[in-house]
């Protein structure tokens, strides 16, 4: 395709652009990471022995391919530390996502049933936290949760507790932080599906003998499942790789994979192992994404 042809057909450019983006900013960096993950650690700058240099020519690359090592991956699977980190990440993500769904659904449902002017206000309230930096909001939580923080002051003042409770560096604090940070990502897709639902469908269910609660489970909920799937994935996937919130709010006895990765990378300076961990994490997350994609495609096919 010549440059002129490209510009003559902006539509074609638009079709290619997302793939170009993917190749440039995802596949190429991923290639780097993959390459590092297959090499050996070294005390050097950068801290690994490169498998091959593109400048050394084809023969060097061929010999490098011959001695490709999966050593780093074997280490990841063999060492409890990594397995436990992966498991903890999945558990934390699953628990957080469940809590998010339980809290987010009623909020989104309530928002969708509001009258139009109140709807936009509610929407604004959901989005407003984004106007402050995420990091600042997490630090604010540290402030609230610390030993002489706001929460303990209130609890003491209300005589609900007699000594300050330890909140910080606990799983509760971490879950609180995660749920707080990700709630909009759960609410917005749910709200989008619930708001566009035809109100006459509920009336029809009602008319055909379904009590309001029954109508919810038979009509509203099944029809909101695409929103549920979107919200769950939008939360689950980034939470699995979450680093900042567990690092700032949770204790250090158990690590999530994001934290382990960070440790390997910056503290241990073991780039190959860290890269291998990243590649494995990606593979772990691709699975639900593929599932979601298939679900969505089926939805689209049904629409069309």
């Amino acid at each position, binding site marked *: 395709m010549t440059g002129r042809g490209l510009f003559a057909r902006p539509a074609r450019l638009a079709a290619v652009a997302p793939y170009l983006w993917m190749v440039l900013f995802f596949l190429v960096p991923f290639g780097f990471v993959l390459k590092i993950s297959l090499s050996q650690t070294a005390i050097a700058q950068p801290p690994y022995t490169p498998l091959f240099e593109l400048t050394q020519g084809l023969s060097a690359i061929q010999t490098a391919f011959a001695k490709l090592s999966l050593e780093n991956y074997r280490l990841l699977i063999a060492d409890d530390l990594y397995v436990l980190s992966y498991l903890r990440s999945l558990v934390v993500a699953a628990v957080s996502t469940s809590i998010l769904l339980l809290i987010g659904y009623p909020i989104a449902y309530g928002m969708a049933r509001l009258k139009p002017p109140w709807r936009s206000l509610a929407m604004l309230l959901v989005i407003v936290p984004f106007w402050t930096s995420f990091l600042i909001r997490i630090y604010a939580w540290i402030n609230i949760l610390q030993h002489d923080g706001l929460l303990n002051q209130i609890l003491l003042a209300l005589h609900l507790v007699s000594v300050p409770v330890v909140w910080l560096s606990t799983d509760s604090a971490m879950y609180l932080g995660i749920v707080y940070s990700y709630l909009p990502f759960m609410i917005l897709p749910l709200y989008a599906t619930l708001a566009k639902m035809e109100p006459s469908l509920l009336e*029809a*269910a*009602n008319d*055909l003998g379904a009590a309001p609660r029954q109508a919810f489970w038979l009509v509203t909920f099944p*029809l909101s499942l695409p929103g549920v799937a979107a919200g769950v994935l939008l939360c689950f996937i980034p939470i699995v790789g979450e680093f900042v919130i567990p690092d700032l709010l949770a204790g250090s006895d158990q690590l999530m994979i994001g934290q382990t990765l960070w440790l390997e990378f910056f503290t241990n300076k073991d780039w190959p192992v860290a890269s291998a961990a990243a590649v494995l994490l990606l593979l772990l997350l691709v699975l639900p994404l593929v599932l979601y994609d298939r679900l969505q495609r089926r939805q689209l096919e049904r629409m069309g």
Partner: protein
Amino acid sequence: MAEEISNLEPQAGATAGLPEPELTAASADLPLLRIEGVVKQFGRFRAVDQLSLDIRAGEFFALLGPSGCGKTTLLRMLAGFETPDQGRILLDGRDLAQVLPHQRPVNIMFQNYALFPHLNVRDNIAFGLRRAGMKRREIAARVAELVALVKLEGLEKRKPDQLSGGQRQRVALARALARRPQLLLLDEPLAALDKKLRESTQFELMELQRRLGLTFVIVTHDQAEAMTVADRIGVMDGGRLEQVATPRELYEVPASRWVAEFVGDVNIFEGKVNSCAANRIMVATGNAGTLVIAEPRRPIASDLVCVAIRPEKIKLSRRAPASDAEHAPVINRLEGIITEVNYLGGTTSYKVKLDAGAVLQSSMANTARLDIDAYGAGQRVVAWFSPDDGVVLEP
């Protein structure tokens, strides 16, 4: 609930194929549906205003009116989606005020059909039956029966978005009929269909209603549709019933000028009552001379009246028809010039500018294929009609 529904076989008097026996107001002590002084207010707007109406069992009743006249609000109150601010709604003698929508033996077919998009045709139709706790086998049998009734065989597994508009309409109808409601409400059921399909569906609806012996209340803004399907029509305007009558009465004996103008085309001449003798009223009009009209059933209070004549009641001819005062009835003759001719196929519509000033509309059936003697614009004619063809109304 299960027994209640399965026992709701076609009601008495509606044995298969036979038309409902003529029920008169006297023979039916209690109507199936009685609406008493119902008021519904939205903010300061009175959607339904002191409305009372009786609908008999087995009747096909149409609520006809312009948009915003309150007909849909009334229907929604019958379904239970709105509660009346005042008044009562009695179904089979039972006050519906405390009966929630899902407990009413009333079903509604929505204008947009409101089919459940996640359920296929069979599950849409079975939805109401499952809620009633019917047995699986009975549900299957009832669904099969309904699918055959609305001619949807072979489409049971399709989702609503895989159906055409007409097929969707049938699913909605079958779903609304599934529970054998005492009262079936239809909110503009045919509005989304194209003309040909709409007309054939009208007849299917009528046949269905007769066969099942159910009571249908249809809301429509399409007067041809109301006239075609309904036994009686209630014309609504501004939250009130202007007239409740059979289609023929509505057209030939409109209760008010508004009804005369809303239903069909009409020529209206305003004037003053001159004299009244031998069941004939002489009305002096400003722009059509003096007209002789049959005396109305109900006496008119004021002297100022208007005369309404349907276009097809006015005949045109080149010379005035003979009428001698002693034997033949008096005939109104209005002379004028044809200004406009609209050929419509079955009929031709003419505009005649009268010498007295008014422009009147006449329409005549094209009974012969070759009409070499047809009127053209500029033709001088006499427009005539008998006194019985006009209606005197309050202005």
